[in-house]
C-alpha cells in the first residue's frame, strides 16, 4: 500500500520515443514511490531509463502511459504551462553543467526563479542573499560565472534551485564536472539541505556519491532493477514511510 504521505508515486509508467520501426521504449513500466524528506540516488548504465525517469519526475516530460502522482495530483494530466507552474512552485533543478546564465552575477542568477514568481525587488534580494549564504557564497554575490570556480558555480546553481524553498531538489549528475574534493563538498551541502527537510533526487553513476543517499534506486533496461534502503550508514529511519520497491507488474 502507498500512503498519502508519499510525495511521488509512479505507476506503470512507460515512455516510448518515435514510432514504427524506429520505435524505442525507454521506460517499460516503472513503479516507484518516493517519500517526502528522502535522499534518493538514481543509478544505472546509460540507456537504462534513469534520465527519462528524472525528466518525468522533474515534470519536464510526461509519461506515454501510466500515472504520476505528485502530492496526490495527476501530473500526466497537466499541460505544459501547468507543469511549468508546478516546477516553479515545488521543484528545484541542479545540472551537471551548472547552467548558470553567463554575464550574470551570482545574485541575479539566484534571483531568477523569484522573478518568475513575481517577488518584489526587496524580497528577491533578501531571499536570494539568504540562499547564497546557505551555500556559503554570500561574499561572492556580485561575481559572474566566469569569475567563479566549478565548485562555486555549482553552489550558485544549488542556491538558485533552493531559493524558492521547493519540496524536491532534482540533481542530474551534480558532481559530474567536479574533482573529488569539490564533489564531496557539494554532496555534503546536499546532505545538509536534505537534513533541512528538502527531498533530494540525484542521478549519479559514482557509487561514492550515491553513498551519501539514504535510498539508491538502480535502473536497468527501462525498469527499476532494485532499491537499496537505509543505504547510508548510521542513518535514522525516515519519519514518514520509507521508499519502497515495487516490482515491475506486467
Amino acid at each position, binding site marked *: 500500500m502507498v500512503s498519502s504521505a508519499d510525495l511521488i508515486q509512479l505507476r506503470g509508467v512507460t515512455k516510448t520515443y518515435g514510432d514504427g520501426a524506429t520505435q524505442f521504449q525507454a521506460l517499460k513500466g516503472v513503479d516507484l514511490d518516493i517519500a517526502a524528506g528522502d535522499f534518493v540516488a538514481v543509478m544505472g548504465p546509460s540507456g537504462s531509463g534513469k534520465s527519462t525517469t528524472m*525528466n518525468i519526475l*522533474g515534470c*519536464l*516530460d510526461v509519461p506515454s502511459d501510466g500515472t504520476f502522482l505528485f502530492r496526490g495530483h495527476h501530473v500526466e494530466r497537466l499541460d*505544459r*504551462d501547468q507543469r*511549468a*507552474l*508546478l*516546477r*516553479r*512552485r515545488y*521543484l528545484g*533543478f541542479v*545540472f551537471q553543467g551548472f*547552467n548558470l*546564465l553567463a*554575464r*550574470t552575477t551570482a545574485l*541575479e542568477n539566484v534571483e*531568477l*526563479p523569484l*522573478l*518568475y*514568481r*513575481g517577488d518584489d525587488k526587496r524580497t528577491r534580494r533578501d531571499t536570494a542573499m539568504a540562499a547564497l549564504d546557505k551555500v556559503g557564497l554570500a561574499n561572492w554575490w556580485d561575481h559572474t560565472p566566469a569569475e567563479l570556480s566549478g565548485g562555486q558555480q555549482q553552489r550558485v546553481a544549488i542556491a*538558485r534551485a533552493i531559493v524558492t524553498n521547493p519540496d524536491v531538489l532534482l540533481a542530474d549528475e551534480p558532481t559530474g564536472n567536479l574533482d573529488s574534493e569539490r564533489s564531496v563538498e557539494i554532496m555534503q551541502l546536499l546532505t545538509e539541505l536534505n537534513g533541512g527537510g528538502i527531498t533530494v533526487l540525484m542521478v549519479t553513476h559514482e557509487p561514492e556519491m550515491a553513498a551519501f543517499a539514504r535510498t539508491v534506486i538502480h535502473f536497468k533496461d527501462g525498469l527499476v532493477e532494485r532499491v537499496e534502503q537505509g543505504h547510508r550508514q548510521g542513518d535514522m529511519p525516515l519519519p514518514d514511510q520509507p521508499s519502497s520497491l515495487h516490482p515491475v507488474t506486467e
Partner: protein
Amino acid sequence: MFGTTLILAFRSILRHKLRSFLTTLGIIIGVGAVVTMVTLGRATTAQVQKNISALGTNILQVRPGQGFGRGGGGPRPPDFDPSDVEAIRNQVAGVTAVAPQTSSTATAIYEGANWSTTIQGTTAAVWTVQPWPLASGRTWTDAEEQAGKAVCVIGSTVQKNLFQGGRAVGQRFRIGPISCDVVGTLTTRGQAGFGGDQDDVVVMPIKAVQRRFTGNRDIRLMLVGTDERYSGAAVQASITDLLRERRHLGAGKEDNFNIFDTKQISDTLSSTTTLLTRIVTAVAAISLVVGGIGIMNIMLVSVTERTREIGIRLAIGAVASEVLTQFLVEAVALSMLGGLVGLLVAQVVIGALSALGGLPFLFVPSINLIAFAVSALIGVVFGYFPARRAAALNPIDALRHE
C-alpha cells in the same frame, strides 16, 4: 508578470551591448533615412514655394518667344513695346497693373569698391505687381520715371558689396556709362530657387535703362498683376487674344510669345518636389524594412545561441508565454531604442544638410512620430517569429543543447 519580463529583457539587452547595437543598427539607419528624407523633402518644397511666391502671387509673366529655352530656327520674335503695356493694362479685364521690364548687366563703382551686377529697368507699377518692401529711402517719383532719370533702388547684396553695408541712400555711384543716385534700398529676399541671388540687383526707371544701356525701346518681359477675383486662365486667354491681334498672327499661326502663370509654376514645382520626396522616402522605407529583417535575423540567431538559457528558464518554471513575452519585449525595446537613436541621428543630419543646402531647419513632429511608431511595430512583427520559436522549445532538448 509584465514587469518581470521587462526587467529580464532590459537586463539581456544591457548584458549584450555589442549584439544589441548591431541589431538596432538597421533600424537606426532606416528611421534616420526616412525622417531625413521626408523632412528635407518638405523643406525643399517649402523653399521652392517661398521662392516662387517671392516672384509674386497672381502674376502672369509675358515674354516674347515660345516658352523657356525653346529657341528653334527662324527670326527672333519681336520684343514688346510700351504700347503693348498700355494696351494690356487698359483693355484686359482683371488686370491691376502691368510692369514692363528690361535688363542689362554692368559694373558698379563706388569709391574703391566695384561690383558687377544686374540692372533692371521697369516702371513704378512693379511695386504694385510684385511688392518688395524698402529697407530705407523711397522709390522714384512719376516725374523721375517720365524723365528717365538715373535714380535707382538697390538690392541688399549690391548695398553690401558697394557700400560695405553703410548708408547708401543719397549716395551717387557709377554704373556702366552713367552716374546714378541711390534713392532707396530693398529688404533682403534671399537666394532664388534656381541659384540666382535676387538681391544682386539695381532697379531703375525703364527709360533710363533703355536709353543708356540697351539702346532701344524693347521690352523683354511684362509682369501682369491680376485681380484675384478673376481666374488666371481667363486673364491669360484675354491677353493672348489681345497680343495675337496686336502682333498680327493669323488663325493658323502659333503664338510668338508666352504667358506663364507663377501659380502654375509653383504648383508644378511643388508637385515635382513632392513626387521626388515620395520616391526617396519609399527607398528609405525599404531600408527600414531591411532593418526589421536584421532584427529578426539577430533575434533568430540569438534564440539558437540562447537555447540553453531558454531551457534553464523553462526548467526554473517560466511558462511559454513568459519566454515569448521576454523575447518580444527584447525585440520591441531594441527596435524602439534604434528608432529613438535614428530620430536623433536624423535631426543632426537634417541640421547639417539644411545648412549645406541653404534650407531652413525643419522639425516635422508627425513624421518623427510615425517613424518611431513604425520602428516599434517592426519590433513586434519581426520579433514575434523568433519569440514564438523560443517559447516553443522543449525544455529537455533546450537544456541538452550545446
